[in-house]
């Protein structure tokens, strides 16, 4: 029996894909809500894929937010496997991103939010070009110390809700310093507050994506 010739076809150039992972309740969706207006103000065309674990809550929340055309937000069911759908078998997310690319040919950036997961969560580089991991100070000041692939391997570690640190009896500065130590000099860590009148760190995250991934000038 003879084999037909291979016709390998790797991913074609398209919009940049950014993964956003992290534990349940760490603020992944809130961060996306805070990033959308910043990217839009900078002329970046966006779309979003969410991976809700048990409902379509995150997708519906973004679709109803008024921040983005609801048609640019799609939900992918995770089949009880939040790890699998972004790492071992990311094909449903790849298909969802490809569908968005086909429907919105001008899209520059697709944000792919994972379902809430644990510290071992990582993204397949078949699916994303760059990914961040979001933890929050309310989970305890020992989270960076526990390391885990999510914390150690992500392109950007976001430590969210730094404004609530005093209320949960931890030091945001100490958590940020320990995170920077465990990750080393070359892997960035940003402290963030994405809700309320005074946000913090969100523009820095957008700057990093604009510069490192979209290769665009960052506003001074």
């Amino acid at each position, binding site marked *: 029996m*003879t084999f*037909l010739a291979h016709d*390998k076809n790797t991913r074609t150039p398209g919009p940049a894909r950014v993964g956003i992972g992290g534990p349940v309740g760490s603020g992944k969706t809130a961060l996306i809500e805070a990033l959308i207006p910043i990217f839009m103000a900078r002329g970046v065309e966006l779309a979003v894929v969410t991976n809700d674990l048990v409902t379509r809550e995150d997708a519906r929340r973004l679709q109803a937010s008024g921040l983005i055309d609801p048609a640019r937000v799609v939900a992918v*069911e995770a*089949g009880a496997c939040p790890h699998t759908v972004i790492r071992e078998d990311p094909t*449903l997310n790849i298909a969802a991103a490809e569908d968005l690319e086909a429907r919105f040919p001008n899209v520059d950036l697709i944000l792919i939010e994972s379902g809430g997961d644990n510290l071992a969560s990582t993204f397949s580089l078949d699916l994303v070009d760059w990914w961040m991991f979001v933890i929050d100070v309310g989970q305890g000041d020992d989270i960076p110390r526990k390391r885990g692939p999510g914390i150690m391997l992500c392109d950007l570690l976001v430590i969210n809700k730094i404004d609530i640190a005093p209320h949960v009896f931890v030091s945001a500065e100490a958590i940020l310093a320990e995170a920077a130590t465990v990750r080393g000099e070359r892997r960035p860590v940003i402290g963030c507050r994405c809700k309320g009148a005074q946000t913090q760190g969100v523009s820095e995250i957008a700057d990093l994506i604009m510069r490192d991934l979209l290769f665009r000038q960052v506003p001074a």
Partner: protein
Amino acid sequence: MSAHSLALIRLLQVSDTAFPSGAFAFSSGLETLFNEGRVRAPEDIQAVLVGQILPRWASFDRVFLQAAHAAAGDPGKLSEIDARCHLQSSSDRLAQASRRIGRSLLSVHARIGTAGAAAYRSHTDRPDLREASTYEPVIQGLIGAGLGLSVDECELGAVHSTCMAFVSAAVRLGRLGAIEAQSLLADVAPEILATLEQPAPQLAGAFSPFAEIAALRRNAMQAVLFAT
């Protein structure tokens, strides 16, 4: 080792649950059947597999797989087979699931260089075909031919994937132990063989209302882990 052994090695590779196809996110109605209390015990799961899932595969999916295997290399004929599958799919949710799995499989095989996959992916990127093509059995037939598998081997891989996806959904729903699942699959093996030994019908048709209606019925009040 012969070229045929190489084809069998590829069959094992693409039939493994580690092969990314997206099938893990679909339960073929089992999640609803559990949530509604219509399926409870391992015996119930086996009964649904043997009485609903396998017959549906044999009388519907198998027909399109065989046709696609024969038409591999001709995107025009393949899209005609896809169109027939589309028109005969009465359950929209199951049809959508089949297209999503097929699309995922096609995308992966295009990336790893399986013959015919990239060409058919480009063909079905047309806006008028995107919502009416890449059904799972059509893609399985096309891929099997591209890997140098006979139609019988291709069917074996496809029915194995169908059974594994269903049983692994039961495990992740917490209603079947991992070892119980293997015992169930061992029990069902003769049924699978008997299914494969029967000739496929000339015309595709399906009557598995228990599972099909369950896949359509979603309770908004309950958590939903699976796409079907």
